[in-house]
């Protein structure tokens, strides 16, 4: 059934394939850029991935202005301001992000500061607050999970107010996303598993939560199918280029789905679990997803059931049985990933203590994702989900 009203946007050019990275100079030229600032992190440099990016510039007219490789896992406003200053000091004209969610969000926010001519990110918090066009921006993901290369959002920690600032604007979309499997082949098994489950959570919640629409449904289903067919392979065979490329595509598809249809209680609680107990986002999503799906059985059980065939479970003709099968498929994948990589399946295994559960539940209900969840998420409901996942 069509929603009464919906919006969908994904203006990012996608370049997918082995050695797709070789097109980076060409794409930058098309965008009128000659001197990009490259934003990345130490892990990317250590893994030799930055070298691949720099090699792509050989014999081109593009000369990177500077490389910033100090992006931390949860980037903050000080880092963003530093990157923006480097951009101006080195007369750069574009951004290239090489990394995961934190690197990409840092580049998005630095771009915002450069274009808006301010160092006060706070005033751009919220939705659609940017009116100026951003500098050319290309993303090369080195994880397959966040989908940030096709989202209009960025989250940055503000050191002054000790809060996370969220920005959403169609201006924040990168101009191009380059999916090259060589960029994820060095990712450790456990991180591959966690980021892949993050992508699965994006796709699943985009499909069954309140803002679903037929366009994002298509993206979500394509992502789920690719994840169930390839995630375990990337964990067991890290050098498998086909599986790595499939997971990069799955992450992108799921990103495009949830950037438009948003997510639900799993993300709401996962964000809070990250904030209170420092559990990595993908790990928390992986643990919570089956419980979040079950939480919504009463309101959208049949819709959840529609996902079962794309998770390897044949349709039974009984919508609620299909919903149960979909949850069983997610649990089975989680168990297989645990056996293959040590990915936790319970919050207690991820370092969360029982005493932290009330604090997590309290933070979760203030997360925007819970508004999009079909079932009402009160403190008591969030705590109940946490106890089950503990």
């Amino acid at each position, binding site marked *: 059934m069509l*929603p009464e009203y919906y919006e969908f946007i994904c203006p990012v050019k996608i370049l997918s394939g082995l050695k797709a990275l070789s097109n980076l100079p060409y794409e930058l030229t098309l965008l009128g850029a000659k001197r990009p600032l490259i934003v990345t992190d130490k892990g990317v440099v250590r893994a030799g991935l930055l070298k691949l990016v720099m090699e792509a510039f050989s014999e081109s007219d593009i000369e990177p202005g500077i490389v910033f490789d100090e992006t931390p896992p949860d980037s903050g406003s000080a880092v963003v301001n530093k990157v923006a200053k480097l951009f101006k000091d080195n007369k750069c004209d574009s951004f290239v992000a090489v990394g995961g969610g934190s690197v990409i969000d840092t580049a998005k926010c630095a771009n915002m500061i450069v274009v808006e001519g301010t160092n006060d990110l706070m005033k751009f918090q919220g*939705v659609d607050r940017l009116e100026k066009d951003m500098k050319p921006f290309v993303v090369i993901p080195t994880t397959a999970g966040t989908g940030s290369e096709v989202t209009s959002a960025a989250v940055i920690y503000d050191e002054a107010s000790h809060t996370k600032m969220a920005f959403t604007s169609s201006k924040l979309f990168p101009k191009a996303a380059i999916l090259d499997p060589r960029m994820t082949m060095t990712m450790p098994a456990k991180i591959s598993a966690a980021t892949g489950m993050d992508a699965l959570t994006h796709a699943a919640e985009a499909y069954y939560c309140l803002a679903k629409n037929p366009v994002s449904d298509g993206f979500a289903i394509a992502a789920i199918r690719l994840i169930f067919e390839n995630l375990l392979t990337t964990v067991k065979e890290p050098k498998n280029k086909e599986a790595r490329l499939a997971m990069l595509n799955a992450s992108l598809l799921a990103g495009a789905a949830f950037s438009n249809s948003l997510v639900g209680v799993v993300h709401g609680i996962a964000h809070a679990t990250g904030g209170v107990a420092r559990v990595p986002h993908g790990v928390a999503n992986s643990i919570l997803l089956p419980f979040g799906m079950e939480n919504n059985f009463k309101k959208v059980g049949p819709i959840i059931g529609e996902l079962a065939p794309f998770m390897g479970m044949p349709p039974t003709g009984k919508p609620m049985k299909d919903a149960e099968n979909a949850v069983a498929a997610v649990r089975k994948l989680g168990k297989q990933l645990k056996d293959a990589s040590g990915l936790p399946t319970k919050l207690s295994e991820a370092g969360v203590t029982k005493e932290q559960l009330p604090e997590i539940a309290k933070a979760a209900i203030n997360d925007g994702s819970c508004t999009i969840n079909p079932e009402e998420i009160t403190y008591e409901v969030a705590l109940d989900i946490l106890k089950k996942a503990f």
Partner: protein
Amino acid sequence: MKQKTSTVKPTLSYRLKKTVVGIALLALGGTFEKVSKHSAELKEEIKDWRKGIVISLGVLPKGPAISLKEENGTIRYLGRGYKNPDVKILFKNMDSAFIPFTAQMGSHIAFVQHRALVHGSVVDGIKANRAMAIVQAYLLPGIVFGKVFKVPPKLTLKQKLFKLYVYLTMGIDMALNAAK
């Protein structure tokens, strides 16, 4: 034929909707203030708000708006318009505002359908939206609860009596608040 948009007169339908939304906002502002002084549930919700935060609720591009301020654990209705708000909850156009303000849709669905958005801290916007849902339970007739809330609230006898008091005094409150 080229036509300047500024010369396009609002339709009767638009003007009617603007009037209805303006009245609904006025009713919401006064009721918010009143309920915040009596409802334990709303007081508990406001307890977590930033001290002195000003929240405005309005309609783009030039529609009606109201502002509310947290003061000592309760809410004060500041009046019509945007009074230096920390957070704005905005409806993109009059049609998008009219549907939730006539109880045909919950505010959560307005956000889901991109009809409404937050300028400022999203967390503060979520808290305000949750508080607004508590106020709506006193403002709206029970018959529309199923359309507006994910889980329709069940009011106790004491709460029902207070709701009656809200209804009986709403006209006076609105007349007094209209001047603000």
